[in-house]
């Protein structure tokens, strides 16, 4: 259909699974820079009265925001696409120096069935850049694995108080039809 250019981006089950997990874990602040891969999860968070969904102008704001939330006793998550990881690098000094817990949910672009070459360099650098700044990376490749991986990341972040990123493979999100 001409008005459905992203027809491969059919509704998926995993965004609702993530929303359920973060609700049960008591996360109250979800900050995001929009990404097509996070569209459904962002909408679920915006509709959820227990969650303050915070639109950011750039991803590093979310790193500082969630450190402030933790200082005040609140937990949160930061949603972005892989290109946004590059924007976070220096701000992750705050997370590292303060040993603040952090949960980043990163939808990958530039790694699978990608049309736009501008997404590729940061896709290659996403995991190494996060690891260089001390963020523990987990990755979900298959839809059935998302809930398990995000659940493990929630425990690492908020029980062990670690900085954790979940990389959500581009294959999960589907081919973008241009």
């Amino acid at each position, binding site marked *: 259909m001409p008005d459905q250019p992203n027809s491969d981006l059919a509704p998926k089950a995993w965004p609702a699974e993530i929303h359920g997990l973060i609700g049960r874990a008591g996360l109250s*602040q979800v900050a995001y820079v929009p990404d097509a891969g996070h569209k459904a999860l962002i909408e679920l968070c915006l509709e959820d009265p227990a969650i*303050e969904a*915070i639109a950011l102008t750039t991803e590093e704001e979310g790193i*500082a*925001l969630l450190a402030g939330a933790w200082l*005040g*006793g609140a937990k*949160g998550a930061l949603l972005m696409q892989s290109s946004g990881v590059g924007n976070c690098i220096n*701000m992750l000094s705050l997370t590292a120096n303060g040993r603040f817990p952090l949960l980043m949910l990163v939808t990958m672009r530039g790694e699978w069935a990608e049309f736009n070459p501008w997404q590729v360099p940061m896709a290659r650098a996403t995991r190494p850049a996060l690891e260089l700044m001390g963020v523990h990376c987990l990755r979900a490749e298959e839809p059935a694995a998302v809930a398990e991986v995000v659940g493990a990341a929630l425990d690492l972040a908020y029980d062990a108080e670690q900085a954790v990123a979940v990389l959500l493979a581009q294959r999960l999100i589907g081919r973008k039809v241009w």
Partner: protein
Amino acid sequence: MEGQLSRRDATARLVAERGELLVISGLGSTTWDLAAAGEHPGNFYLWGAMGGAAVMGLGLALAQPRRPVMVLTGDGEMLMGLGALATLAAVAPANLSIVVLNNQRYGETGMQASHTALGADLVMLAKGAGFRQALAVSDDAGVADLAGRLQRCEGLLFADVRVAADDPPRVLPERDAVVLKHRFRQALGLR
């Protein structure tokens, strides 16, 4: 026009009767200013993370809606995260105030002119980003008024405090952010 207020004096007066006020200070001179005004477990000093102070205050203000929260930062630190003004205005917690000690200089790096010396107007930027309350403070009466506003939590507030481009002696607080974090959380009754 360059300000006349003393940054140290203005800071001391903003926190003199702080009550329940929680404060995050931005990288550089405002951290020394806050430390010079006296140690307090409700202070979190940034020694880095430039551009992050205002939005860190947002996370804290949302987590502690009953406590007034002040972000005390400089013009250079604020300029590095101007987008945060739009992020804050979109949420607009009533208990959050952003107070910029604006000396129109990058004080820690050799007093180079910042963009507020080169034409940028922080009050207009805050208003343009959606702040309903954004004011310039240039005299003692304005500082006294601001100290009262910080406590009243009548809405998201931005204050551009025009301070002199002086260079008072450094007063260096704790720089271990883990220590500062635990101290801050314990003061709030968190583990």
